[in-house]
């Protein structure tokens, strides 16, 4: 790895499990799901993850005009991450970058606009600026006064993994001194859920316990729960973090990217394996040095098998040194924000030396042949490196690698 070493010094979450990173991680370690039943007239029952969010804690009513929920969540998560990093005004504003991933952008605004038009009414004049996919990044930039690169990545489920990679590279190259990398998604709307139901990728609600509906790597899995939320991390050079005495959660060690270039939705083990190999190579790590994989793990019948096959192909005989979990079983699939939330969880796993589990993953599917952590989290005192995988519709695969600090 060349260039400056990049470390994570702040985390901010607006997640289905809440907004405090330590509490969220504790809930995950206990295997507690935040997925709930979602019912609306005319909509087949669904399970979703929603964020309890009071926008007026972050914006005045006037500031909220023309600001979609996706941007509100992004600003709240980014501002939380900045506070967590104890980031003072010592950075020149043109040396600050904002990198945001989002799949759909302002889904609620688009929905309202079409609903108004269908009813013969006019759409709000702010429909375009509220719904554009780069609105969250722009609002974060205005909030923190970032005058450097402010960019948006829309790569479906890998959007915010792409944002983190870009942010880390910009710091590594010395283009900027500090970055906010954020993912945000806010599409828990009946029309959007219907569209996903039509694609047959969503989990069937469990009649007895809706919170247990998403079952990655289990024989009876049926898909994922759509979720909303935002997650942000502050990335800066190690030299600067140390000079200001910042708490360092973990270091970004590298990333691997590939595209299946085969099918829009069907995952491909070869494509995923290429991203995994590149990630290890760029991080200078051997497979047996990586102790945890926060899997993409969407609990679709095909996806989980393909992912396990890709891990086996790369890890080979070292597969038993790896522990794998899909925390989507508990927080759902945040789509464009999934990469950022799961990267934050991966960073917390390294910081806490604990590996969160896959919930509701029994009975195990023997076709998912990887060492899956199921039920409850486990202590991992020797954990030194971990990966977070994001495999997107469209075929883009992104694997982020983080290293633990030598001592805390």
């Amino acid at each position, binding site marked *: 790895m060349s260039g400056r070493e990049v470390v994570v010094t702040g985390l901010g979450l607006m997640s289905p499990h809440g907004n405090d990173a330590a509490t969220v991680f504790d809930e995950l370690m206990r295997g507690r799901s935040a997925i709930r039943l979602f019912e609306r007239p005319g909509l087949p029952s669904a399970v979703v993850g929603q964020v309890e969010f009071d926008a007026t804690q972050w914006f*005045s*009513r006037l500031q909220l*005009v023309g600001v979609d929920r996706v941007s509100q969540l992004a600003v709240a998560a980014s501002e939380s991450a900045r506070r967590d990093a104890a980031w003072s005004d010592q950075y020149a504003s043109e040396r600050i970058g904002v990198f945001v991933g989002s799949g759909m952008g302002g889904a609620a605004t688009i929905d309202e606009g079409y609903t108004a038009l269908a009813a013969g009414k*006019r759409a*709000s*004049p*702010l429909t375009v600026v509220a719904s554009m996919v780069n609105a969250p990044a722009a609002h974060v930039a205005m909030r923190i006064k970032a005058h450097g690169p402010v960019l948006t990545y829309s790569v479906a489920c890998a959007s915010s993994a792409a944002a983190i990679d870009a942010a880390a590279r910009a710091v590594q190259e010395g283009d900027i001194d500090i970055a906010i990398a954020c993912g945000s998604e806010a599409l828990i709307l009946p029309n959007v859920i219907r569209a996903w139901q039509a694609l047959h990728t969503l989990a069937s609600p469990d009649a007895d316990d809706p919170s247990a509906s998403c079952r990655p790597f289990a024989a009876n899995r049926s898909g994922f729960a759509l979720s909303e939320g935002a997650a942000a991390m502050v990335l800066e050079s190690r030299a600067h973090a140390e000079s200001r005495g910042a708490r360092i959660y973990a270091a970004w060690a590298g990333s691997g990217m590939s595209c299946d270039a085969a099918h829009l939705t069907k995952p491909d083990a070869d494509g995923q394996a290429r991203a995994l190999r590149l990630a290890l190579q760029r991080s200078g790590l051997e497979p047996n040095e990586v102790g945890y994989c926060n899997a993409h793990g969407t609990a679709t019948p095909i996806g989980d098998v393909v992912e396990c096959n890709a891990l086996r192909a790369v890890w080979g005989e070292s597969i038993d040194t790896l522990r794998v979990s899909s925390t989507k079983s508990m927080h759902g699939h945040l789509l464009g924000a999934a990469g950022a939330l799961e990267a934050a969880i991966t960073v917390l796993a390294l910081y806490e030396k604990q590996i969160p589990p896959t919930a509701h993953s029994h009975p195990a599917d023997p076709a998912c042949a990887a060492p899956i952590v199921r039920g409850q989290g486990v202590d991992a005192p020797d954990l030194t490196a971990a990966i977070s995988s994001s495999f997107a519709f469209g075929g883009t695969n992104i694997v982020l690698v983080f290293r633990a600090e030598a001592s805390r």
Partner: protein
Amino acid sequence: MTTFDEVVQLIHEKFGVESGNLSPDTTLTEFGLDSLTLVELIFAIEEHFGVEIADDADIESLKDLATLIDELRSAKKS
């Protein structure tokens, strides 16, 4: 309720601006509207009063806005 009072109520409901801070002489930019929120306010006014305000309408203050609304409404009736 006068048109001015209705405008003040609308601004309070939509933007959370305290009614006590709004007088007939308050200018549209004085209580924090930028060019985008101003467009949204005009849209809300048009929807609420059933009028159409021209892009080049000469509106400085809330009093001007209320007067214009009254003119447009009476023109519509006649």
